[in-house]
């Protein structure tokens, strides 16, 4: 019983974490049209920085080297991780968003991801190179003294709360004038610029807030598995997040949720039960990626807007004076005004 519960809770944690990644990417791509092809780099940055903020100082004799080691409490570590991901997003945005149009921008994000991966893998003193961080403390695990399965259930609760907060934030941005202007920039950057919108700044806002949210997902990831190494955040993970958003429906946070469930949970987990063939150890991950790829192609072919399409904006109805096309004055005009307008 406990095992099943633990398994389901584990799935739930992955679901929440992928939801968070998809919300972050949705703000960048679904709202503002930024092709961020290195989502997972920001997840890693969030995770690593939260890890080194929470871990104790690196012990010289242990052979494990990393920066900081501040032994900070977990809520502070969460903030550190989120802020670090946002800061990296800002740096990438400085290069990618300044003058570049979407296709070049995508290439810059890819390049930035490779650079970060290269630095992190090869620098032993940063996050212990290709070995990665291990033994990252889990929030409240020392205090609660739960069995592993019970702790997973508790952790699921924590993830769910954070996921819902991210969802609310993302939705609030979507419905605000800021979100509307982001979408206008997505639709036509030059026109938005011609209407006085500071497109660079607004796209940067989308980039950074998206990275912060992805970074929060990264913090939850490193907490859950208590370790993070470069092998765990390859390009194929970025692809899973993109697939989730495309399949679920870009521009719609509910779509992000549906997509995460379909792609990250169902597809990822279903392939786990395919019996492994010992002579082909890579077969299952390959099958997984191929089937996700096929799902993306089918979606783009048959339902390009995704399972849940972007919602049409609805405003509350403003009564229009019937029988006349004369404008309703915004401020009550003096009585002479209405006749003179004709």
């Amino acid at each position: 019983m406990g095992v099943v519960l633990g398994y389901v809770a584990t799935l739930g944690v992955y679901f929440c974490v992928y939801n968070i990644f998809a919300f972050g990417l949705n703000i960048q791509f679904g709202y503002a049209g930024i092709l961020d092809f290195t989502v997972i780099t920001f997840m890693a940055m969030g995770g690593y920085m939260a890890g080194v903020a929470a871990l104790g100082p690196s012990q010289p004799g242990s052979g494990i080297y990393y920066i900081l080691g501040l032994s900070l409490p977990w809520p502070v570590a969460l903030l550190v991780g989120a802020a670090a991901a946002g800061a990296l997003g800002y740096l990438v945005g400085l290069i990618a968003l300044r003058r570049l149009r979407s296709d070049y921008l995508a290439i810059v994000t890819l390049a930035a991801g490779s650079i970060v991966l290269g630095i992190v893998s090869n620098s032993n003193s940063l996050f212990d190179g290709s070995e990665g961080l291990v033994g990252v403390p889990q929030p409240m695990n020392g205090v609660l003294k739960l069995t592993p399965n019970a702790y997973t259930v508790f952790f699921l609760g924590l993830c769910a709360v954070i996921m819902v907060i991210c969802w609310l934030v993302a939705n609030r941005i979507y419905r605000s004038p800021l979100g509307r202007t982001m979408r206008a920039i997505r639709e036509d950057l030059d026109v938005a610029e011609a209407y006085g919108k500071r497109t660079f700044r607004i796209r940067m806002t989308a980039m950074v807030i998206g990275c912060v949210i992805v970074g929060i997902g990264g913090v939850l990831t490193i907490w859950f598995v208590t370790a993070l190494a470069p092998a765990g955040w390859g390009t194929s993970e970025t692809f899973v997040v993109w697939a989730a958003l495309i399949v679920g429906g870009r521009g719609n946070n509910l779509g992000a949720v549906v997509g995460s469930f379909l792609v990250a949970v169902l597809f990822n987990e279903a392939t786990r039960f395919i019996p492994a063939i010992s002579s082909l150890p890579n077969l299952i991950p390959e099958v997984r990626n191929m089937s996700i790829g096929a799902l993306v192609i089918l979606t783009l072919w048959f339902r390009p807007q995704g399972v849940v399409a972007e919602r049409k904006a609805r405003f509350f109805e403003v009564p229009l004076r019937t029988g006349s096309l004369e404008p309703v004055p915004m401020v009550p005009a003096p009585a002479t005004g209405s006749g003179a307008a004709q």
Partner: protein
Amino acid sequence: MSEKNEILEVRDLRRSFGGVQALRGCSFGVRRGTITALIGPNGAGKTTLVDAVAGARRPQSGRVVFDGHDITGLPCHKVALSGLIRTFQISREYPAMTVLENLMVSPQRQSGERLSTVLLRPSRFRAEERQHLVRAVEVLAEFGLYEKRNDYARDLSGGQKRLLELARAVMADPRLLVLDEPMAGINPALVDRLAEHIVRLRDERGTTFLMVEHNLDVVERLCDEVVVMAVGQTLATGTMAELRANAEVVAAYLTGGVPADVRAQG
């Protein structure tokens, strides 16, 4: 022409694309409260001029003075914020947004465009949003697009997109509206309606217009002043009647001919 009365002054603007000299010394003024036409054959440099005035392309030399401020080389959004809005030769609505939303984007300096306000003080922009909404509905009604308010802009017809382009510009409350061929590709009845809208906006809101237009009947009916361009230069300015008497203008406009001095240069 009194200097003070000019809302826009363009002085000796030059811009080339590689070997093509699209603007080779453009100078003219637009008087406040007028509808000024900019005419000239295809390839005369009218769109390039609009781009240069609005900050979409940097001129290589020359000056643009808007309402007493030198706006030469300012980025596009700053020009827009100073009260000069331009439209595009090809309609460029925001396709996957509704007609109403297309208008709601336009108001400038919306407090709800700041992340801190959105996250921490949403009540601050709600009242403002409501005002914009009331006005957007009003403008849509004026332009006969009220019924279409919840349709995606991409689903409008070509003519309706033209109306939307103008309605959206009006929502930005410009003092000078620069229209690049607002009537291209629409039927005569709609041309008349657009013309009425332009006159109404000038009379009611005091908006000044500079419009690129190929239809000389419309220009004659609508415009107080006409600027003629050919091969990157302003040939002449004046009323339509004055220009009809100008043989050089007639030659340039009807035949696309090159004025003698330009031919000599090169």
